[in-house]
């Protein structure tokens, strides 16, 4: 069900949202992006990013130091 997967692990701010933006631009509305990060600020940043870009955060969770996000393109 994921249309694009973005591995932003090991990348510092602002790279996770820059990568997320680039990836989601390649999708159609309603398609799904999965993003993994390790930047500790990304839990807050991703929530801000979806608010500002009108995408939908379907899921945000931490798994062993990896933050995993499922975003539906708005």
């Amino acid at each position, binding site marked *: 069900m994921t249309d694009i997967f973005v591995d932003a692990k*090991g*990348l*510092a*701010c*602002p*790279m996770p*949202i*820059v990568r*997320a*933006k680039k990836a989601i631009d390649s999708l159609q509305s309603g398609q799904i992006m999965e993003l993994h990060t390790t930047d500790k600020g990304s839990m807050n940043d991703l929530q*801000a*990013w979806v608010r*500002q*870009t*009108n995408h939908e955060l379907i899921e945000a969770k931490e798994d062993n130091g990896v933050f995993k996000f499922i975003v539906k393109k708005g």
Partner: protein
Amino acid sequence: MANKKVAIIASSPGLETAYKALNIATAAAALDAEVAIFFTFEGLSIIHKDAEQMLKLKPGNEGLAEGFRKVNVPTVPQLLDMAKESGVRMIACQMTVDVMGLEKDHFIDGVELGGAAAFLDFAFDAQVTLNF
């Protein structure tokens, strides 16, 4: 949505200024904002072709170099590429360029030369204005 605007002035020396201005600029572009950076005085080093030699950490901040490596922070050229790719306008202040005896080809591709009015024309309806 596309009417969010962020207007940034980069006028201070050093690598720290480059990171402050470019991180906010690339993040703002990722948040679907239109972004313009006005580079003036020492801030011009950021877009100079020899930026790598010109941009140093402030005295006392040298210890941050290791942290930058450890945290895997993008380099200034990488941030500039991302900024360009995401449509960030980069305006070099014509007056300070002239005062410093510089020419357009001292700067990286994609930089436009302009005066205060060129920046203000963009900045008047920006919701966010920042000065670094």
